[in-house]
C-alpha cells in the first residue's frame, strides 16, 4: 500500500486546494479528509453519500492514496481497520441503512482502538430525505463497552473543517470518529474557503519508542491510549475483538477485562471537556435558548433573530459534536435561561440527553420534525411564541 512519504512533497502539497469555492457538501467533506492526510478510502455506494466515493476515487490517486470499492459495507469497514493499523489515515462513507451493516467491523475498530473516520450521510428509510433519526445508532450501534465521538457539521464549510477535526480526534484518541451529515447539507452547494496548508492543524499518531521486546501493544496510562507500533518491524501484535491484556493476548480474567474496558471508555469520557466543542449565538442577554446540532442550527439562528425582533430574547447553542455529550456547556446554559428548546429533525431523540443534563435547572421543550426536511425558521418561531407567552 502506498503511503505519502516525506519525499513525496508534491503530492502532500496538492492535498490542499486553497481558495474560495462554491462546492457541494459531499465534496467538501472529501476535501477536508484529503487536507487532513487521508490516504485510504474503502466504501460501497449508497445515496446520498455517493459523491463522497466519486470524488475520493478521483482525489486519492492525485495525492498518492488508495481507493477501494468494497463488495459491501462490512468488507469496507474491515479494510479500514487493516489499513489503519498499517499506518494509513482512513475513511469510509455510507448512509443510514449502510451504517447498519458496518456495526460488526466498527465494533472491532473500537475494541482494537483503530483510528477510523466514518461519514454517515443520514437519510430516511427508502427515500433520500433529510433526517437525524439515527443519532442514537451512532452512539449505541455496536455491541460491547465503548464510547463514540460524533461531530455534527451544519454547513459546507463545517463539512470541510469538522472532517479535519474528526481525523485529528481519531488519531489522538485511537477511536473511530463519526462525521454526521444528512441529505440537506450533503447535496447543497455553498461557499467554502480552504486555507493554505500551513494554517491547517494536523495531529499524527504517536509511535512507540520501546524496543519490540519491551513493547506493550495495549499498555497505556489511565484514561489514555496506547502508542502505535510500526507494522512489519518486529512488533508482533494480536489485534483481537476478544478481551485482551496489555500484551495483546486474549485474556478472560475479570480484572484485566475490567481494566481494558474502563480505559477504552475512560479515554473518551474523562477527556470529554477537551473533546467537546459548542458555539454560542446571541447568548449574552438570552432569556431562552435553542440547543441544537447539525443543519438544524441554520433555521434556529434565523428563528432566534426573528424572535428578537418581537422582543423575545432567544439565543442559540450549537453542539459541534453530540457524542460525547457536551454536558459542561449544556449544564452551564441551563442554569442561566428560563427554558431550553431542543430542536431536532427526528421524532425526539437527543432532547432526552439535553433534558437529562438540564434536569433541575430549567425545563426542556422538544421541538421535533420528522418529515424529510429541516425546520423552517417560521415553524420554530411559532413554537417560541407559543412557549414564551
Amino acid at each position, binding site marked *: 500500500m502506498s503511503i505519502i512519504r516525506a519525499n513525496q512533497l508534491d503530492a502532500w502539497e496538492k492535498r490542499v486546494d486553497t*481558495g*474560495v*469555492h*462554491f462546492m457541494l457538501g459531499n465534496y467538501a467533506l472529501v476535501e477536508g479528509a484529503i487536507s487532513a492526510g487521508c490516504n485510504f478510502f474503502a466504501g460501497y455506494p449508497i445515496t446520498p453519500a455517493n459523491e463522497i466515493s466519486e470524488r475520493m476515487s478521483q482525489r486519492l490517486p492525485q495525492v498518492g492514496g488508495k481507493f477501494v470499492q468494497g463488495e459491501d459495507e462490512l468488507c469496507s469497514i474491515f479494510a479500514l481497520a487493516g489499513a489503519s493499523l498499517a499506518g494509513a489515515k482512513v475513511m469510509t462513507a455510507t448512509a443510514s441503512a449502510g451504517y447498519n451493516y458496518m456495526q460488526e467491523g466498527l465494533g472491532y475498530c473500537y475494541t482494537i482502538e483503530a483510528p477510523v473516520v466514518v461519514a454517515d450521510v443520514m437519510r430516511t428509510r427508502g427515500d433520500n430525505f433529510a433526517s437525524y433519526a439515527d443519532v442514537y445508532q451512532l452512539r449505541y450501534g455496536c455491541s460491547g463497552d465503548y464510547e463514540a465521538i460524533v461531530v455534527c457539521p451544519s454547513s459546507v464549510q463545517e463539512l470541510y473543517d469538522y472532517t479535519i477535526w474528526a481525523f485529528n480526534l481519531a488519531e489522538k484518541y485511537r477511536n473511530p470518529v463519526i462525521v454526521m451529515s444528512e441529505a*440537506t*447539507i450533503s*447535496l*447543497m*452547494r*455553498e*461557499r467554502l474557503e480552504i486555507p493554505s496548508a500551513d494554517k491547517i492543524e494536523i495531529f499524527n499518531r504517536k509511535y512507540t519508542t520501546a524496543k519490540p521486546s519491551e513493547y506493550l501493544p495495549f499498555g497505556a496510562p489511565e484514561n489514555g491510549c496506547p502508542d502505535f507500533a510500526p507494522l512489519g518491524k518486529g512488533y508482533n501484535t494480536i489485534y483481537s475483538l476478544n478481551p485482551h491484556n496489555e500484551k495483546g493476548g486474549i485474556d478472560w480474567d475479570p480484572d484485566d477485562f475490567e481494566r481494558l474496558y474502563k480505559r477504552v471508555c475512560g479515554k473518551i469520557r474523562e477527556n470529554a471537556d477537551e473533546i467537546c466543542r459548542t458555539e454560542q449565538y446571541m447568548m449574552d442577554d438570552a432569556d431562552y435558548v435553542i440547543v441544537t446540532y447539525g*443543519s438544524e*442550527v*441554520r*433555521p434556529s*439562528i*434565523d428563528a432566534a433573530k426573528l424572535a428578537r425582533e418581537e422582543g423575545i430574547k432567544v439565543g442559540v447553542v450549537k453542539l459541534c459534536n453530540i457524542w460525547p455529550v457536551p454536558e459542561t456547556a449544556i449544564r452551564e446554559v441551563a442554569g442561566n435561561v428560563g427554558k431550553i428548546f431542543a430542536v431536532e429533525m427526528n421524532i425526539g431523540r437527543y432532547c432526552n440527553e439535553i433534558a437529562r443534563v438540564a434536569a433541575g435547572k430549567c425545563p426542556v421543550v422538544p421541538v421535533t420534525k420528522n418529515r424529510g426536511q*429541516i425546520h*423552517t*425558521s*417560521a415553524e420554530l418561531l411559532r413554537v417560541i411564541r407559543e412557549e414564551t407567552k
Partner: protein
Amino acid sequence: MLQFPQRISLCGFGGQGIILSAVLLGTAAVTKGGLYAVQTQSYGSEARGGQCQAELIIDKGPINSPVAETKNLLVAMFQTAYEKYIPILDEDGVLVIDPQLVTNLVRPIANTFAVPATQIAVDLGNRMAANMVMLGFLSECLGLLKAEDLLEAVKDQVNPRFVELNLKAVQAGIDYAKDNNLYYHG
C-alpha cells in the same frame, strides 16, 4: 438589480441544464463576486424528462436557512414546472419564461419577461444551450451577475467541447435583452 437576498428558483424538465445554470450562477457569485450563495435542488430519477428545480439564495453575508419560503425570481422553462412553482413567487417578484414552453400564464406578475431561449439556442445549432441563453439574459436584464464573471464561470465549469457554443449562447442572451430593451428597474 434584483434585491438581496436574491431568492431564485429555476425550473423546467430534466436535461435542460437547470441545475448547471444554478451552479454557474452560484459559482460566479461566490468565487468572482465575493458574495455568499446556497444552492439546493430537487429532481426526478430520470436522466431526461421529469420535473426539475434548482433553488439559489445569493446574499451579501452568510446565509442560514438554506431554502427560502418565497422567491423574488422565478425562471420557468416548462409549463408544468411553471404551474408548480408560480405560487411561491412574491407579488412584486420577477418572472422569466421561455414563451414556447410556458404558454399558459395562470397568475399575472407585473415584472414578466419572455425570452425565447430554446429557439435562440436552436438557431445557434444546439437546443441544449437554451440554459446559457437564459443566463446571459439574466445577467443583462437583472444585473444578476457580471457578464465577464459568468463567462469565466462557463469556461471553468463546462465541458471544453461545448465551451465555444455556450459562450455564444450567453452572448445571444445578453444581446436579446439589449436589442429588445428588456431591463428590470426594481
